């Protein structure tokens, strides 16, 4: 069965695609700021954010407490959610393309767990590496995530040379459980307040502020650049390394680049928001269904789509059982796991028929 899709990349269609996603992103952000325990009308949101962005004085008719809620609490939270979504969407697309694996994402590959372990070590032991300052947290997360990824791939290769879809996911699950257990052990040993830590592990973007936005933003930018520079190679690599090699792709270089770029994104996302699963799995599939497989456009488009998704999920997480907030990772898992199942079934069926 053919999926509904717009496949031909004529210039005008591309323009429409990017325009539509950007518009959707703006709308989601505005909606995310507007909804909450104190509802703020959309129009006011636009007024306040617009004024602040362009350094105009906020109209005097607006209450300063409202301005504070928007600028100090809601806006940074929504932006953080957006950036985390962007990072996860991007890294998921990169992993899936590189490993030719429709089930890959930072969470199923175990990278998130690796990053989380790193983050827990930094957060709960209060480590500050010299020179890095606040960036100790994302940098350590990225490094532990990257090492986990290398470990998973190396292990999967030991099991089965050609890195089949199922093997690599199994290796990821194995690593995930192991690292998760280590993380729990560390937490138990420190004897800190468990509820807070578990809440963090399940993923959340609440009460982080602009500080955390600054932590993730540079890594997102760097990751995007690195991946975009390997977009054509990702296209080639999704036909297999040998095939990519035969058309002149420097396989080693670009595989390392993509793995590194995706680890940057995953690690920094985990550092600021904990482990949020399945975003990197679902988003690339949606994006491919809508826009096709060419990574030159798939990467930026799924990044923005990830942003939209995350902002909306965060909105849902804090409103669905208000005043209590649901950890965002719980919600993404509830949405994501069934989709994972569907993708898996369809993948296996397709493989059997071809």
């Amino acid at each position: 069965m053919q999926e509904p899709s717009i496949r031909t990349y004529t210039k005008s269609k591309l323009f429409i695609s990017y325009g539509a996603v950007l518009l959707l992103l703006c709308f989601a952000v505005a909606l995310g700021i507007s909804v909450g325990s104190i509802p703020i009308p959309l129009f006011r949101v636009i007024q306040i954010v617009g004024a602040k962005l362009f350094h105009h004085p906020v109209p005097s008719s607006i209450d300063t407490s409202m301005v504070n809620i928007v600028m100090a609490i809601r806006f940074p939270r929504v932006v953080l959610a957006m950036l985390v979504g962007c990072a996860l969407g991007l890294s998921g697309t990169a992993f899936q393309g590189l490993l030719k694996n429709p089930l890959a994402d930072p969470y199923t590959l175990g990278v998130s767990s690796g990053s989380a372990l790193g983050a827990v070590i930094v957060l709960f032991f209060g480590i500050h590496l010299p020179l890095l300052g606040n960036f100790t947290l994302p940098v350590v997360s990225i490094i532990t995530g990257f090492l986990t990824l290398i470990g998973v791939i190396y292990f999967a290769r030991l099991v089965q040379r050609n890195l089949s879809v199922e093997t690599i996911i199994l290796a990821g699950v194995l690593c995930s459980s192991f690292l998760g257990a280590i993380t729990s052990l560390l937490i138990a040993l420190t004897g800190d307040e468990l509820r807070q830590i578990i809440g963090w592990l399940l993923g959340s973007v609440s009460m982080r502020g602009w500080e955390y936005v600054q932590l993730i933003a540079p890594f997102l930018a760097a990751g995007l650049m690195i991946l975009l520079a390997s977009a054509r190679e990702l296209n080639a690599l999704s036909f297999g390394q040998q095939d990519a090699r035969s058309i002149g792709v420097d396989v080693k270089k670009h595989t390392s680049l993509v793995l590194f770029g995706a680890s940057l994104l995953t690690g920094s996302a985990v550092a600021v928001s904990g482990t949020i699963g399945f975003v990197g799995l679902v988003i690339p599939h949606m994006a491919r269904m809508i826009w096709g497989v060419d990574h030159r456009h798939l990467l930026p488009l799924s990044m923005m789509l990830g942003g939209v998704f995350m902002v909306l999920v965060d909105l849902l997480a804090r409103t669905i059982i208000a005043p209590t907030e649901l950890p965002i990772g719980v919600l993404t898992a509830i949405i994501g796991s069934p989709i994972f199942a569907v993708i898996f079934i369809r993948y296996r069926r397709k493989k059997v028929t071809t």
Partner: protein
Amino acid sequence: MINVQQLSGGYDGKKIVDDLSFSVEKGEITGIIGPNGSGKTTLMKMINGALPFQSGEVLIKDKPISSYSAKELARIIAVLPQHAESSFDFTVREVVALGRYPFYKGLLKHSTARDEEMVENSMKFTGVEEFADKSIQLLSGGERQRVLLAKALAQEPEILLLDEPTNHLDLAYQMKLMDLLKDWVEGCQLTVVAILHDLNIASLYCDQVLLLDEGKIQAIGKPGDIMESRRLQSVYKTNLSRQEHPQKPKPLIALVPRQQEEQKDLSDIVLEATPETMIFRSPFSLRTMSSAVIGGGYQWADTFVNRHVDKNYNVDDARKEFEDYLHSNSVNPNDTVGMMTAARLQDAGMVSVEEKGIKLLVASTVGTSNAVDAGRSWEREDQPMPIGTINIWIFMEGRLTDEAFVQAMMTATEAKAGALRDYDIKDPVTGTPATGTSTDSICIAATQNGEEMRYAGTITPAGKAIGKAVCQTIGTAIENYRKRMQT
């Protein structure tokens, strides 16, 4: 173009190909053949730089392959893989565009107008432009193969490497693909190296064939020179037999299935005779060589029809008429050798011989009204050809070589001429002794089991038996005819 010198290599330190040396010239198709596990794919991988080798050297355009970067190499060599699968549905155009990868420049790798043009051209050339925007996963195996070929073409390579390109393709696509390659090789001076499973494709399309066995070169050269039955049999450990292609000066390799030696006894052949036809029916097939209207040339047949027709029989398409006639008599023309004669069938001479290990059944029908001295037949005016009149049927037990068939025919023909001389039959135009009549026919049918007979000339027991039997039957037929005319 490609120069392989003392190349050895394999996986995990194991040696799969061992000390290979050969070269491939520009503008030629080289086929690599050999049984499974003989190292074909390993060799191919080493030629395209995908697998490092243990020792030796591969020179591409006189430079070591290691001196090229991946991109430089991709501008010279394109590879058509056995199958390329992606988990995602790329469109055909996107796949073909991948072939332009080695030509993109700069960090952003922008495509130029020339890139677009090459993509369109190569899609057109392989006939896939009609599904340019379709997902590659929706295509059939043959269509997919053509898309991959288009991708390789878009690379504008000087060398194309193919790994079993005709796998998964039906017969028509196989031929189309190979014809396409051949055109391309001739038109653009492309050099092709292909792993081929099908020995006949290799024979028909390759300028050079390399036969690999257990990692070593068994033979390399023109298909006609190296594809010998005995060599192939020992490499493939299978019963193969080499024939010649009917229309091309190339060998054809036929597979011979294992079979039980069938009991084939000439005495099981039965004759059904009516004034209109004499039909020999055999429970087994015989290999035949004949000049008959139906089933002429080399054939296998189990039914042999000698049909009487009126001496004024004149049909434009005699073969078609005869086939229809056989059908209406419930005889399958495909398993039949069929001749016509105006002579009376009841005059036929027939003899069965069994001596000195030779078993023979010979039947002849004779009419001498058009007797001709072959050496002087040129003196005759061209005239409408009256229907054939001496038909000789020879059935024999034994495994005859092609040479033996020809000699059997010579022997029989000479014996026929001898018989006519014995009965003093003259060419009415020249007045000289006749050697036959104007439209004679002959069929030699052999059981092809038992003892091999390499020759059947008059020096051999078989030849002697044939000569004697033919002479006898023709004599009997003439006597019968004369007797009937007297009464």
